[in-house]
């Protein structure tokens, strides 16, 4: 295989990388011009299908296939929602793309809208990214001025408007149907699927929701071809007929206890160990204890499991939920898994939208149990209680509408199953008198009053 050449981050080191002039000097928008001149929308869909591109937002659904779910005969508008609600703890690659190379994102967005015949795109950008907001708005203005947006784009007859839509600090809006509800002006309660957004999405019309990095990949697929994309990454597992492979470049986020945290571009399939080495290794000469493979929803790897490949298939072989956002967070040998799990449970309890009772109550109770354990009032049986909770929470056991609860469950399950000794030691050390027995629960006043 030829040496890997970064494409997604190729432009960001240039001075003024966020301007159209610098982007175009490096060849930007040539793919858009050629596609509008030479290709019909269905050919772009075919191209993206052939490339094997899978969504970069977390679920890894094949992008071209998602696009084919749109109705063939349109009876109204198609809406495109760009999911820039990047909120998964540990993840920041979309922010870097939007701040430093907004035109790469826009070229991919326009190409993706053309392929899906969308004439309006809502760019759902999280509240916490003010610089990205300014840069994207400036880039959109430049595109209208250059005739890359608006009616009759570059004389092709194709019309597209892109509107920035600002979120308001809710993690659940990154879930595609939560995003649609939020866009419609409601609280962001995810919808039961089906109907899928491609059939009935925003404003009850066919809708595509794709991640920022996903559409950025579309730019390069249009410029370099499907075969180029498939030459990078990990081919399908021949023993797994359902594995479509993990192709293309990926932006890996690395943070936590490492020397050089940052965003690194590499082919899909880089191992956790290789990524940590690219980031200068574990900080302060320490050893690693664990790492999150792809955002906090994906669970935990032990240090012995760092040969795990960061592609769409391998993390599951290590008991993790999946690749997620490929955001690796490293915990060194001094880190407390009790504190880690408390942090994770607090996050999900805060971000549960409250719609499904198992998630609303399950995340809140897991946090209370962790608070009690940290306060020195834990019991060994709490660990089993947490596991019971983790095993019964989410889409996978079939108790919730969306996957937020699966993410909450996965840190619980992985942390306790893979590091049970540390939790037991903590309970024994901090609650030596009470850990064997159930702590007496005060009787409810209502039952003892009479």
């Amino acid at each position, binding site marked *: 295989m030829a040496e890997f050449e970064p494409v997604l981050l190729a432009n960001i080191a240039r001075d003024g990388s966020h301007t159209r002039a610098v982007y175009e000097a490096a060849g930007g928008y040539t793919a858009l011009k050629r596609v509008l001149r030479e290709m019909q929308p269905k050919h772009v869909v075919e191209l993206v299908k052939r490339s094997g591109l899978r969504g970069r937002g977390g679920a890894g659904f094949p992008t071209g296939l998602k696009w084919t779910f749109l109705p063939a005969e349109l009876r109204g508008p198609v809406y495109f929602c760009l999911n820039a609600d990047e909120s998964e703890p540990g993840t920041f690659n979309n922010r870097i793309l939007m701040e430093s190379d907004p035109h790469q994102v826009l070229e991919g967005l326009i190409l993706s809208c053309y392929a899906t015949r969308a004439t309006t795109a809502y760019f759902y950008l999280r509240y916490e990214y003010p610089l990205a907001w300014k840069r994207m708005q400036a880039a959109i203005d430049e595109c209208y001025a250059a005739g890359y947006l608006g009616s009759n784009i570059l004389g092709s007859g194709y019309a597209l408007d892109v509107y920035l839509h*600002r979120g308001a600090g809710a993690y659940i809006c990154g879930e595609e149907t939560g995003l649609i509800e939020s866009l419609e002006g409601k609280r962001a309660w995810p919808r039961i699927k089906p109907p899928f957004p491609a059939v009935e999405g925003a404003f009850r019309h066919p809708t595509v929701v794709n991640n920022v990095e996903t559409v950025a990949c579309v730019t390069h697929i249009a410029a370099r071809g499907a075969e180029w994309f498939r030459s990078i990454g990990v081919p399908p597992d021949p023993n797994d007929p359902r594995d479509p492979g993990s192709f293309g470049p990926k932006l890996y986020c690395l943070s936590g206890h490492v020397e050089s945290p940052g965003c690194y571009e590499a082919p899909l399939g880089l191992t956790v160990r290789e990524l940590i080495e690219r980031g200068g290794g574990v900080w302060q000469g320490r050893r690693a204890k664990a790492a999150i493979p792809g955002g906090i929803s994906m669970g935990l790897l032990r240090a012995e499991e760092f040969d795990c490949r960061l592609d769409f298939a391998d993390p599951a072989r290590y008991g993790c939920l999946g690749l997620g956002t490929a955001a690796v967070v490293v915990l060194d040998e001094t880190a407390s898994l009790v504190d880690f799990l408390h942090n994770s449970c607090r996050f999900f309890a805060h971000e549960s939208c409250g719609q499904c009772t198992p998630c609303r109550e399950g995340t809140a109770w897991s946090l209370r149990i962790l608070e009690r354990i940290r306060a020195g009032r834990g019991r060994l049986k709490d660990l089993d209680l947490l596991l019971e909770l983790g095993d019964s929470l989410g889409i996978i056991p079939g108790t919730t509408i969306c996957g937020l609860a699966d993410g909450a469950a996965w840190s619980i399950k992985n942390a306790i199953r893979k590091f049970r000794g540390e939790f037991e030691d903590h309970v024994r050390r901090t609650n030596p008198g009470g850990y064997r027995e159930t702590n007496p629960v005060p009787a409810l006043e209502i039952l003892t009053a009479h």
Partner: protein
Amino acid sequence: MAERVLTDEMLAAIRALFPRYPTRQAVTLPALHIVLEGLRYVPPQAVVELAELLGLAPAQIQDTLSFYGIFPQDRPHGPTRVWVCRSISCALRGAEDLLRELCAQAGIEPGETTPDGQLTIEIAECLGACEHAPCLLANDALHACVSREQGAALLDRLRRSGAADNQTVSEPLPR
């Protein structure tokens, strides 16, 4: 009748968004942002006026508003609003200590505003700047790798300069 709180400029800015969306309800969140920017809070009277403008029941606006955590309703947040990240990457690098230090120095709890009304400190879940952990957002400016000492100095500076200190100090680093 209660005194109106939405200015003509706000109303015009909100109306200018109508053509972007097929429904008026979709303008709810952008409109709330416009009000928040102008008033630094969204009082119940503003909810009533927005409902009138968008053809909705006030309860629909309130329902959406209260789902999110950024729209105070009782009193305006300070001209300086600081969001301190506490999610995992920042927590591993001292975010809890930083948050405690900032709150102690300001004499308030997270979510509160100083008695002089100048400074609000908020807890944030992942600010998406984990390579700069621990980080905080002060109005539109991201502050990277903030130690406790730097945090204390920053707070001092922000309280003196108010909202004027709005420079993003950290550009993302190319790697």
